[in-house]
């Protein structure tokens, strides 16, 4: 079973993402701020990270830059998810190397398709 780390500071969204992914046979671990996310990534070594951009104590972008500097986790694919959706932000994170981008509110089919694609390609 593929392991996905979901990081979001909104507990409702975190719970919903977790139940959606579990229902589709993924193992899910969660984190609700930047520092926790970093710790969990190193502890769990997930197959995929779904990362909210705006989080307390370290934005998603900060977390991403940090994991790129650590050999054992640098290759894990990252999908950014944000309610600050705009073409500019999407372009920015894609240029940074994120495999995909999901804007909130998301459509579950779209989310699952992007998750599957990211896992298949990695």
């Amino acid at each position, binding site marked *: 079973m593929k392991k996905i780390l979901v990081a979001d500071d909104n507990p409702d969204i975190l719970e919903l993402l977790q139940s959606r992914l579990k229902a589709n046979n993924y193992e899910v671990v969660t984190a609700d701020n930047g520092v926790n996310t970093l710790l969990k990534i190193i502890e769990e070594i997930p197959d995929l990270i779904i990362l909210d951009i705006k989080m307390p104590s370290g934005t998603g972008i900060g977390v991403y830059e940090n994991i790129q500097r650590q050999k054992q986790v640098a290759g894990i694919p990252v999908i950014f998810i944000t309610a600050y959706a705009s*073409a500019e932000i999407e372009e920015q994170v894609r240029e940074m190397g994120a495999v995909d981008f999901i804007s909130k509110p998301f459509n579950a089919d779209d989310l699952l398709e992007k998750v599957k694609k990211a896992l298949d390609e990695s």
Partner: protein
Amino acid sequence: MNTSVKPLKLFIIEDNETDIAVVRRLIQSSKQNILLDSSTRLKEGIKQILENQYDLLLLDLSLPDGHGLDALVQFKSKSVHIPVVILTSTDDRVVASIAIRQGAQDYIVKESITAASLLHSIHYAIERKAVENALETERSNFHSIVEMINEGIVVATLDRRVQFINRAAEHFLQTDRIQLINAPFPFKIEDGEFFEIPIQRLNGNFGSGICHTLKTDWMGQEARLIMIRDITVEKAAEQMKDAFLQNVSHELRTPLTSIRESIAQVSEGLHGEINDKQDRYLSLCLNNVDYLKRTVDDLLDISKLEAARFELNKTSFDFRDLVKTITLSFKSPAVSKNIQLDKSLPKSPVIVEADRDKITRVLMNIIGNALKFTEEGSIHISIKKKIDHLECCISDTGLGISKEDLPHVFDKFVQFGKLSLTHEIGTGLGLSISKALIELHNGKIWVESELNKGSQFYFTLPVIK
């Protein structure tokens, strides 16, 4: 003139008493109501004129205590607007014409003086001075307006050399006219365009100015008029508005995410079975959540478009491919409504340089509308290649638009035709966003329609080949 109630008060500065007597006699012989005071010395004469009100000065140039031209200089510096007629001997004509350039109105050659020529000269000088004063007043009024306004004004030749600059522009460009006159304007002048430059604001801080250039004439030559306006405050306000909109949209989208996904999971039966009625109401919820999401997105877009700060990500592509892809995506909804969807495309490539996502959005919007408002018949998409642009037409056999509604089709928040809740609800912003997007690509968009006779939406885009 001789009917005026007030006598004309003249003054004569002339060192030759005989000449004064001649002038006095000539004036008396005219029987006009004229008074004449006199002085044989320049300093004394000037003093009298400065202290009293005189209507005209008859001025000899060579005087024992100075040159007559000195009087003209003094009058100018003290803003004394007295008409002056120069009395000169034959060999003084050159000097007399210099005096006229210095501000005198006329001159009389003493040897050939007659009553008629003297009076003619007096009245002519008074009238001429009045006209000069009026012109000077007008000039100085315009000058103070131009100097007072907080808009920078610069006139430059076609090769950018500055010919005129007002106070505000001096301040904005941190220079003074002595330095800048005939020097090149420090920024590239773009004809008829608005361009932004860094400025020093009138309060001393630094900020942004917007320049607008217009064609003008200067000394009979074609030149450029550059107007500079301080837009620092507007820019700051725009940035605040942007940040505010970003935050508002984030705060709206976050709860919408929870609401949407909660409903979606329940309606999909992820957390237990639901009955048909529950399913129907949950679908209504989802439709409305999606509507709210689109409204938030559209509002954000329209505010960016209106501020003209929408960035286009242009690439070159064959417009026919885009139409093919989009037509394909509408195939199944068209089939399920039993509407025929077809297209006619040119045989050769139609290459445009455009933002593919934005043009996709325009096409999705117009075709989506066509499908929404057509209950039977067909939708036809065609591309015509013109000399330097393409013309795309989306034609349907749907509801059509009434004559009264036609001018408002591209307005914001305008919705025509009542549709049932099972339809995707529009935000009323789609066509105004489409219009802004097409115009951002230097294209045009318009509609032809008649109620119950279908609609034809057209737009153009520049093509590369």
